[in-house]
């Protein structure tokens, strides 16, 4: 046999609740209880409200650049719902706020981060998540290491990392998938294919029919799903999480979704994409779809919606208030959290911060470094009072 087939594979697409309200009873059966669906919907609406407010905060100069999550709530929330809060690691980029909140991150942390304050990343004890990753694709390798540590210790913990379509072009993405596949690590890779990486359409990142098939390169489980269908998301992430827990095998999930807003508040998407495309996707808005599902099942009505909207506004307003009330960080913070113990050179810079041009005036040091060290604060970082957000 001169030409023989040595590998065959396929990629499947999963959808449970379609755009028209059709529901696949078989796949969807018992997946999420009605109560849970309501809670998930409420969470989506609240996150959407945060997006609107954050946008306004940026426009009025109260916050820096902000990336809206609008349109991608089902992907983030569905994934978070399928994972174990307080056990599994979430390793996000910057479009998964909704997932982080689901796993316990107070909302004002996210605001604080985009207000230019590192304390927005000071993940509270007991939460298993890493801060939003700014450099694209890099966080995927951290998920690999976190999952590896869990396996090493025999813990029942897995890691789920989120990234965009653009991220799949980065070398780190490949290295992460390859490590996870070859070292048998319990990682769930969730690609939010929202169609765009800023102004670059997804086909420039991946001209193959699906992004999901990236996983085939590693002999990894892979699946494409409707990322605006929270049921599909819960299903595929739950399957992947089970596989990870049971067999320490990774899965690559492509969640097909859409970024309804601009890339960030610094972007103007009208420069590069058709309004027709946006309009089409507005109809597929995951909030609309889930609300219809609930209404169809008599789980939801206008009254509930009104009260939810009011609640959401209140919750977001409280988070904004909280974030804005936090006193400005101290200049010395940048020194105090760099190393566990402050090196001498930094002690000097810190101590003479206000008195010298560079916090280090050679003429002041004529008494010797020892002398300067005495003027300096004596305590180590761990002893210093920490202002948590």
């Amino acid at each position: 046999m001169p030409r023989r087939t040595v590998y065959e594979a396929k990629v499947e697409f999963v959808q449970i609740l379609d755009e028209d309200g059709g529901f696949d009873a078989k796949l969807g059966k018992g997946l999420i209880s009605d109560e849970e669906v309501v809670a998930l919907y409420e969470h989506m609406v609240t996150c959407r409200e945060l997006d609107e407010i954050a946008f306004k905060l940026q426009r009025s100069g109260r916050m820096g650049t902000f990336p809206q999550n609008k349109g991608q709530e089902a992907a983030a929330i569905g994934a978070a719902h399928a994972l174990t809060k307080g056990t599994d690691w979430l390793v996000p980029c910057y479009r998964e706020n909704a997932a982080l909140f689901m796993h316990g991150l107070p909302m004002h942390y996210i605001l604080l981060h985009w207000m230019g304050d590192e304390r927005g990343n000071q993940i509270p004890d007991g939460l298993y998540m890493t801060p939003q990753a700014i450099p694209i694709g890099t966080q995927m390798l951290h998920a690999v290491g976190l999952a590896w540590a869990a396996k090493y210790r025999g813990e029942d913990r897995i890691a789920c990392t989120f990234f965009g379509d653009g991220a799949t072009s980065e070398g780190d993405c490949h290295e992460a998938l390859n490590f996870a596949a070859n070292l048998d690590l319990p990682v769930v890779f969730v690609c939010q294919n929202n169609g765009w990486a800023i102004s670059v359409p997804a086909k420039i990142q991946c001209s193959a029919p699906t992004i999901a098939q990236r996983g085939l390169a590693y002999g990894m489980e892979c699946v494409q799903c409707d990322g605006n269908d929270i049921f599909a998301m819960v299903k595929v992430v739950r399957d992947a999480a089970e596989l990870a827990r049971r067999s320490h095998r990774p899965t690559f999930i492509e969640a097909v979704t859409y970024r309804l807003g601009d890339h960030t508040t610094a972007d103007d998407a009208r420069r590069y994409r058709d309004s027709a495309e946006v309009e089409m996707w507005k109809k597929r808005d995951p909030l609309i779809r889930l609300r219809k599902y609930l209404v169809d099942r008599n789980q939801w009505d206008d009254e509930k919606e009104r009260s939810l909207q009011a609640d959401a506004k209140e919750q977001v307003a409280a988070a904004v208030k909280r974030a804005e009330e936090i006193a400005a960080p101290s200049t010395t913070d940048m020194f105090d959290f760099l190393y566990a113990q402050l090196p001498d050179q930094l002690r000097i810079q810190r101590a003479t911060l206000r008195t010298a041009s560079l916090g280090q005036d050679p003429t002041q040091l004529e008494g010797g470094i020892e002398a300067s060290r005495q003027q300096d604060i004596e305590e180590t970082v761990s002893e210093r009072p920490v202002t948590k957000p």
Partner: protein
Amino acid sequence: MANLTLVQAINLALIQEMEKDDRVIVLGEDVGINGGVFRVTEGLHKRFGPKRVVDTPLAESGIIGASIGLAMAGLRPVPEIQFEGFLAPAYDQLCTHAARMRARTRGALTVPMTVRVPVGGGIHAPELHSDSPAAFYVHQPGLKVVVPATPYDAKGLLISAIRDPDPILFFEPKRLYRAFRQEVPEDEYTVPIGKARVVIPGDEITVISWGAPVVQCVTAIEQSDQSIELIDLRTIYPLDTEAIVNSVRKTGRAVIVHEAPKTAGLGAEVASRIMEHCFLYLEAPIQRVTGFDTVMPYYKLELEYLPEAERIRKAIQEVAAY
């Protein structure tokens, strides 16, 4: 003459070089229809088409590695890296290949490439959008590193860079992108790579800087009483040692200003060269006014970190008083 911002001056240089030489192509993330996130490549896609202005996949090592191949084949790629923080994934291709190809092949293959990178702090951007990594690349032999501080210099230096037969990192201080305008000739002209510029002449103290802090230096000097000479290096590799040395031999006192952390920053090299060449002329220790030896903080603290005019003024007083 046209009254242009730094962004416009660079845009004009790109247009003129692309008109003139079809070996010049622009590539990178969002450089196409979007015109770059800072709009530096605005209009190029429309004017030169998708063959010469190419949106690439989101992969910096890929952008630089492919550009090296394009350049070895004789084209003149001008890749854009979106922010200096994202130059890091391309560090390997830059230092391992771009910098070494000519040396490694004893001239058989060369890499005439100009990598454009917005750089520095001061615009309230997120993490990794405000760093100053230039000194890393100055320490790597085989690269040239250019940092214009004015629209005039930006246009002339970029044209020189694109025509230069060697790989060049062209750092654009994003804080200055739209900070002010300057009269810039509409015709093409070059500013030589490797030559500093005396911004303000003076006799008593030399202040040396490059990029965005040059503007802070001017403010600080205006607030000082001494006769201060301000030198804008413009190119940080190769360094114009002569301009530095001539000035400090005259003044005997020097202040060096940059945004990057102090330790092993370029200020150390400049100070060491001054010490080597002006030892008997020096009347005070050279002051380095720089970022602290910490990670560039998120933007609430960035102005505390950057060498703003007030800190520069203090340093001037300190060296004057010594």
